[in-house]
């Protein structure tokens, strides 16, 4: 005889979304705290923070003996968590420098991954042969598979740490390019090796199969890129017609990117490379077509999605760390760590030695050391290890443990020390405070240098780029870009200047104080005022804080955040001022 109850509790109904939301919220709060102390982001990569949050959540779940929501499985990871991360990487890749350095990037990312994967795999196999370690049942294929998943690096996570040391553009591009392509290549290799493992007997594998494997590697990669490019062009074409319904523009961008991923995956081609190629292709045209607000929405939404994905993966990682699913094998883990470093060093120095012969601006040894040291493993490796099918890998727990150890070691130790290392290798700044004179003159020279660099323009292999530019202008832009767009970049920049800001500037009297106006007071009396050191200090502070920043020629990419608005405000102020001097000088 049931009565209607006034209050009821039904936690099971909301458990999954509720807990997932709580996790994401917790990570966001941690990030806010992380950025409040402004020196922290330069001390350690943000992925350290995410890992700690993950461990905390894992500890809570373990401690309360709670049954955690369905942990990550293969389809959730590959279909939902991975695409946003890869999309974000591809979209924020600065295209022009990327294509100029494409050869070096492909050579390093592609061959580097292969060398690392096979090197680590084979070395570990040799270690496994030693009877004393009790690893005899791990066969060659399993070792190779482990090598492929452990060689998936995520160096972009450390980019924010040494951003303030003006890393040169080439180095930045190589690291970014590696982060971008490395995931794709690792996953392709991983899938091929899983397919091999599924063949029942190791002895069944013949030379034919190996050749087929190599061919498949190439086809999967190239096919994925082709898919991505096609979808990129289609979506760029569609954005040409969306003037009147600009609210769906972000939707088109995201849906087509996701579709390229899924379509490629259907045919067992590389979805990661497809979505990357799609983002790179459509970015140029979409940015010109869509409205300013849609453009901002796309950027922010992309960051948000990838941030959520990565947070969830790190939480899963934390949950796995704190628990009973470990198998600790000293030999395997130590050798894994050692081989990771050794093989990365070998691949960096060997491959760059070769590619330096063909480059106009070779990478110095200093650069190569930075590249070597930025080999931080991240969420990608963990996911692949976690998703190893237990049936084929009886010692899966050992692999997972080893992967976790490598990730923790590289992220924390390398991540924290890479900042000081880069600063040490770079310009050795004197710690003495500079005089006001020096401050001013230094900033002037920085602006001057940036200006002259802009006059020089970008130098590249003109032929190929010119040919592509001609093709682009003659055919692609006509098809893909809307009509009636102003050609000059200055005009479109003015369009973005907000009325409100212009009004504010006039009212605060800034526009009257141009370089040409004669001040009211004539020559000041030469009274030399004695200024106390505190006055000088405060003067210097005012100067440092308020001088305009030099335009960053090196693209600045932060994996977890978008650039703050200060540089746009600065540009607007400068433009408004100069508009006035333009007019004055023409009178």
């Amino acid at each position, binding site marked *: 005889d049931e009565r209607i109850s006034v209050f009821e509790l039904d936690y099971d109904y909301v458990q999954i979304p509720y807990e997932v939301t709580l996790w994401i919220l917790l990570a966001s709060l941690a990030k806010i705290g992380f950025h409040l102390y402004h020196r922290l982001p330069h001390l350690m990569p943000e992925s350290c923070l995410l890992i700690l949050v993950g461990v905390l959540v894992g500890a809570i779940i373990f401690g309360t003996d709670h049954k955690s929501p369905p942990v990550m499985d293969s389809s959730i990871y590959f279909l939902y968590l991975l695409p946003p991360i890869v999309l974000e990487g591809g979209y924020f890749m600065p295209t022009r420098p990327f294509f100029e350095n494409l050869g070096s990037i492909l050579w390093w990312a592609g061959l580097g991954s292969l060398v690392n994967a096979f090197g680590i795999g084979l070395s570990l196999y040799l270690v496994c042969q030693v009877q004393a370690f009790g690893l005899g049942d791990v066969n060659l294929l399993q070792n190779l598979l482990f090598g492929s998943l452990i060689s998936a690096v995520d160096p972009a996570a450390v980019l924010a740490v040494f951003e303030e040391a003006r890393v040169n553009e080439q180095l930045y591009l190589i690291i970014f390019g590696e982060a971008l392509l490395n995931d794709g290549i690792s996953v392709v290799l991983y899938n091929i090796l899983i397919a091999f493992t599924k063949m029942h007997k190791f002895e069944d594998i013949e030379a034919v199969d190996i050749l087929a494997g190599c061919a498949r590697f190439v086809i999967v990669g190239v096919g994925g890129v082709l898919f991505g490019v096609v979808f990129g062009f289609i979506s760029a074409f569609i954005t040409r017609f969306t003037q009147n319904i600009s609210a769906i523009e972000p939707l088109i961008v995201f849906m087509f990117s996701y579709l390229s991923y899924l379509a490629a995956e259907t045919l067992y081609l590389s979805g990661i490379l497809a979505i990357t190629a799609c983002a790179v292709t459509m970015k140029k045209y979409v940015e010109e077509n869509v409205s300013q607000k849609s453009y901002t929405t796309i950027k922010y939404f992309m960051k948000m999605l990838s941030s959520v994905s990565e947070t969830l993966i790190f939480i899963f990682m934390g949950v796995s760390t704190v628990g009973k699913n470990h198998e600790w094998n000293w030999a395997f883990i130590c050798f894994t760590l050692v081989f990771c470093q050794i093989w990365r060093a070998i691949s960096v120095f060997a491959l760059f030695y070769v590619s330096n012969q063909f480059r106009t601006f070779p990478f110095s040894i200093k650069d190569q050391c930075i590249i070597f040291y930025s080999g931080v493993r991240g969420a990608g490796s963990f996911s692949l290890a976690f998703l190893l099918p237990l049936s084929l890998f009886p010692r899966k727990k050992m692999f997972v443990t080893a992967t976790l150890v490598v990730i923790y070691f590289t992220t924390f130790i390398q991540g924290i020390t890479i900042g000081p290392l880069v600063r040490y290798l770079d310009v050795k700044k004197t710690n003495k405070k500079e005089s006001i*004179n*020096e401050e001013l003159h230094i900033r002037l020279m920085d602006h001057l240098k940036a*200006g002259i660099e802009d006059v020089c323009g970008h130098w590249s292999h003109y032929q190929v780029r010119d040919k592509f530019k001609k093709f682009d202008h003659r055919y692609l832009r006509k098809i893909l870009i809307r009509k009636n767009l102003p050609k000059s970049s*200055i005009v479109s920049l003015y369009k973005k200047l907000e009325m409100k800001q212009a009004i504010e500037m006039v009212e605060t009297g800034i526009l009257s104080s141009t370089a040409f106006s004669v001040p009211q007071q004539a020559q000041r009396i030469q009274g030399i005022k004695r200024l106390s050191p505190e006055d000088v200090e405060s003067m210097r502070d005012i*100067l440092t804080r*308020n001088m305009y920043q030099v335009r960053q020629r090196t693209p600045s990419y932060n994996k977890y955040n978008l650039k703050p608005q200060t540089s746009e405000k600065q540009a607007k102020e400068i433009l408004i001022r*100069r508009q006035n001097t333009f007019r004055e000088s023409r009178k």
Partner: protein
Amino acid sequence: MGSRSSRAAVIPDVDSIRRETGFSQASLLRLYQRFRALDRSEKGYLSRMDLQQIGALAVNPLGDRIIDSFFPDGSQRVDFSGFVRVLAYFRPIEDEDTGIRDSKQPEPLNSRMNKLRFAFQLYDLDRDGKISRQEMLQVLRLMVGVQVTEEQLESIADRTVQEADEDGDGAVSFLEFTKSLEKMNIEQKMSIRILK
């Protein structure tokens, strides 16, 4: 390649430019291509408008003055040799340049002194060889955001001149300017890597 070397012959006065600026053949070629790309109406020289079309310069606080430095003595056009001459100041100083130089030859354009001279002329608009307090104030106004008041700017300008001024004439001469920057690594600050 045959076509590449014949293009070098297209550059007018290429030998005298090379001697004067010290650029390599390859760099001169690239600079010439850049010159031609900037000269959209193919006049053979660059006007101020052409340089103002470079979008990135528009948001550089010193954009106007940088453009002016390409047009010395009030001229309105700059040909390729003038263009390259300005850029030559920013050539990195190689080790071979600091070796034994024939003292009768003029100092190379990218020497430390000449780099400083180039920076000096950005301040000294009236070309009287001295940076007056007024000129310092003007540069400060260009380089500082709008939140700083006029009084603060004036006191900063005062202090800047006062720090560097040694003979007490209320202005900073070129020698005083170089002295105030003697600890700075000018060679690195004012060198652009790609201009080898």
